[in-house]
Every structure is written in structure tokens, then in C-alpha cells.
């Protein structure tokens, strides 16, 4: 059996990749994907902890998080489409009518 530490290490790695991706990538969709990666890293941590502790709480929490993430995607993509209709660009550096 793979020890829980490995899963936690993987989830931390995914979280850091997501956070760095958000900070250095300039395409709004890719930044958005990086955030999803961070949320899924947290999901992995929840499941790993739940399995390690032999409790179901963490597994159930993941369903809540997935539901919330789905709602967030729906609103987020709608906002990006509304913006794209104005600007015809998805580059964060070109969206600077308000100073960043």
C-alpha cells in the first residue's frame, strides 16, 4: 500500500504548480485551469487524509468541493465570455483598462 505521505506530497506539489501557474501564465483560461488544479490538489489531500484516518468525512467533503467548483466554473466562464466579447483577447496583460 502506498503510504499517505506520498499522496500528501503529490497534492502539495500539484498545489504549488497551480499557484505558480496562476502567477506566471498570462492566458486567462490557463490561469483559471491553474486554480482548478489547486482545488483538485486540496481534494486529493482530503481523500488521502480520510483514507489514512479511516474516516469518511474527507471523502464527503470532496463532493462538496466538486459541486462548488462546478458552480464557480459556470460563473467564471460566463464572465470570461462577457469580457471576450468586449476585448477579443484572453491575455491578462491586455486587459488593463483599470490599472492592474
Amino acid at each position, binding site marked *: 500500500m502506498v503510504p499517505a505521505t506520498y499522496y500528501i506530497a503529490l497534492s502539495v506539489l500539484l498545489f504549488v504548480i497551480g499557484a505558480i501557474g496562476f502567477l506566471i501564465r498570462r492566458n486567462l483560461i490557463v490561469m483559471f485551469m491553474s486554480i482548478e488544479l489547486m482545488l483538485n490538489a486540496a481534494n486529493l489531500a482530503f481523500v488521502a487524509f480520510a483514507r489514512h484516518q479511516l474516516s469518511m468525512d474527507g471523502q464527503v467533503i470532496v463532493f462538496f468541493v466538486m459541486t462548488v467548483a462546478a458552480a*464557480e466554473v459556470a460563473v467564471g466562464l460566463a464572465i470570461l465570455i462577457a469580457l471576450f466579447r468586449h476585448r477579443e483577447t484572453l491575455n491578462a496583460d491586455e486587459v488593463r483598462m483599470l490599472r492592474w
Partner: protein
Amino acid sequence: MIDVSWTVLLPTLLATGTAFAVLLADLAITGPERDGLGWIGIVGLLATAVATANAWGTNATGFAGTVVLDDYAVYFGLLFCLATILTLLISIDYIGTISLKAGGEYYAITLFAAAGMFLMASSNDLIVFFLGLETMSIAAYVLAGIWRPDLRSSEAAMKYFLLGAFATGFLLFGIALLYGAFETTTLGDIAVGVGSSAGLQRTLALGGMALLLVGFGFKVAAVPFHAWAPDVYEGAPTAVTAFMAAGVKAAGFAVFVRIFMHTLAALSVDWSSVLAVLAVLTMTIGNLSALRQSNIKRMLAYSSVSHAGYLLVGMVAADAAGGAAVLYYLLAYVLMNTGAFAVVVAIGKRGEPNELLDDYDGVGLEHPALGLCMTVFMLSLAGIPAFAGFTGKFYLFSAAVQSGYAWLAVVGVLNSVVSMYYYGGVLMRMFMADPTKSVQGTAHRPYLTATLAVTAAGTVMLGILPSWAYELAADAFASLG
């Protein structure tokens, strides 16, 4: 079996029900009577306020202890009712002013956001808190971008959404680490576990706490996590900005204070010095940046950043006096800040937002009542005696001094002096400069007049008679146990 007790969820349920009522009424009501949709929301929230106030002193818990309606939740519930009602009053006027092609959904989304806030205030579990936060935040992202023909509104929504979701990632990973450390997400159980934690468990707890701190830093716009605030506050429709600056920020602090000053109180040695640094940075950078703004919404955005800093001073104190001061200051802040944004709405008109400070030249001479209201709000925000902002800062800074953070109080007072310069600048323009253009003012705008009357009267009353509200705040904080 889980104890299903709907009464502890009453504020959330009432707000959600009102939102659905607005959506249904939206199908039936068309044409000029659409103001009625806002009224449904206001009446629903007044009912929510009465029901919430009734729960004072009961300290009920339900759903296996994950949701509570203690005095703390009641206090914040009433505060959110106030903030949302004031927002709705401004919105009814504002939607007409800018001819916003949104009626029912605007009010409904505002009410959904309010429902999320009530859930946050009542949360006694990290997952319930997460659900409340997201209910509020997702609604707020939509509100920021609801003025679709306006390019700035879309841009503000995008920035708010991306940074807000980024912060959510930090919060969620922090929750995951706390769950890993204590095998539970219930705040009470975590509080017990934190006290006796050691070794790996303590490392996980500290890591989770640090990530939560980053997440909350984003949500309440504390430096260095504040970069989104000026852009979003400037770009969002003004009525929505008022809501974000008052209600959403207060909701962030409601959970921030509950988790840090109660659940993680045993780790206060670890977080109070970090918060002290954040408080100094937030106050100083917020105020210095506000000095050189030419747009009033942007100036008020930086001002709201600096006020988050003052609130952090109260949290650094990490005792009952500090907690009560934070709760009291949030009430004062909601009143004076919403009032200031109501003045911004009053000075704008169709096709002419008049958001530059230049547009304020001589307005106070042309519209004395409006000028008087703005004087009250600006002096209160600056912390001049006889107004709510002064008593609030007095409680915050004296709590810091009593806890041995006198230097922090000194930094806070110096910052208030700096802030006097830009708040006073607005008043100088309004009363000493010659008018360059005519603005609409509050004539024939009953909703705006009502908002200004309530906020100005509240600001003055809290400044003169602060003790009853402070005692409520102290009782509310004491109910955390």
C-alpha cells in the same frame, strides 16, 4: 442521526426564500413598477432581521454542531441585514440612474450573496464556512460584472473572479491541512485539538493556519493581498462596490475573527505577530496609495484597504476587548462607508458617472444637504471625534495598548492623521472650489435620501452614544466562549 434544526438556519433560509420570491415576482412585474422587486427584498430582509434578533441569547446549535446561531452569529446577521438593505436602497435608485438592463436577477443575486453571508456567520464548521463563502463570493462575482455593456464592469468581474478563486484555493488547502491534523472540520473540536497539538500535528496545523491567513488576506483585501481591490472597486457598478466594501468585507471578518480569535486562539503566539506586520503594511500602504488617487471610487477602495488594517489591529490584541472592538468597528464601518458610496451615486447621473475628484468641485455649495452628509462620512472615516469612526478606532487602539501593542496603536493613529489629508481633500473640493458642472444631487431620489439619512444618523449616533452598541458587540464576542 443528525439533528436537523431549521431554526439555526433561519436567516439563511429567509434570505434564500426572499431571493426566490423576487425571481418569481420578476416574471409577473414588468415596466416601471420594477422598484417593487427591490421592496420585496427589503421587506424580506427586515423579516430576517426580526427573526435573527429574536434568536439573541438562545445560542442554539444544530446539524451535529456544524451550524450555530449564537449571539456572535446574531450580531453579524443583523449587520449583514443592515448592509444588504442599504445596498438594495441604493440599488433601486442606481439601476434607474444608469438604466441597467437587469431587474429581478440583480436583487435576487444580492439576496443570494446575503444568504451566503448569514451561513458564514453561523458556520461552526470549516466546510459550512466554505459553502457560505462560495455562495457569497460567486454571487458577488456576478454582481461585479452585471453591467455588461460597460467594459470596466466586465474587467472588474474577471479580476474579482480570478483573484477570489485563487484565494479560495488557499483557503481550501488550509482546510484540508487542518482536517488532516485533527481528523475533524468542526471548529469546537479543532479548538480542543489545537491546545494539545505537538509534533507533526502542530506542523500541519500551522501550515493550515498560514494558508487560511493568505486566503482571508485576499478576501478582506489586506496588504500584500490587496492588488485586486482598487481595480474591482473602481470597475464594478457603484451600488455593488458599496456592497463589496461593506457587506462582503464584514462577512470575511466574521469568519476570520471566529476562526483565528476563537478556534486557533491557542496558536495566537504564532499568528499575532504576523497579523501585526500585516496590519502595519495594510494601514500604511492603503493610506499612502489613497493620497494620490484622482478617482473617488479608487480612493475609497484604498481607504477600505486601510480600514482592514485598523481592524487587524484589534485582532492582534487577541483578547475580548480586541474582538469586541473589531465587531463594533465593522458596524461603524458599514454605516459610514455605505453612506460615502451613496454620496458617490448621488453625484453621478445617466451617462456621466462623475467619479473623478474634479467632479466634486463646489458640490457642497450647490447641494448643502449632500455636502453635509459627505462631511459626516469623511470625518468619520478619518476618525474625528463625535463620529462613529472615532469611537471605533478608540476601542481598537485601546485594546491594542492593553495587550502590549502600544507601538501598533501609535502607527494606527499616525495613519489616521495621513488619512485626514485625502478625506479632508474631498471636503475642501466640495466646499471651497467653484462648481464646474451641475450634478443631480438627491432631489427627487427618495431611496437615496433615505439611505443617506439612515447612514448619516447612524454614524453620528454611534459617535455620541457608542456604549450600547459596544456592549452588544462585547456580548456577541463573549458568546464564542
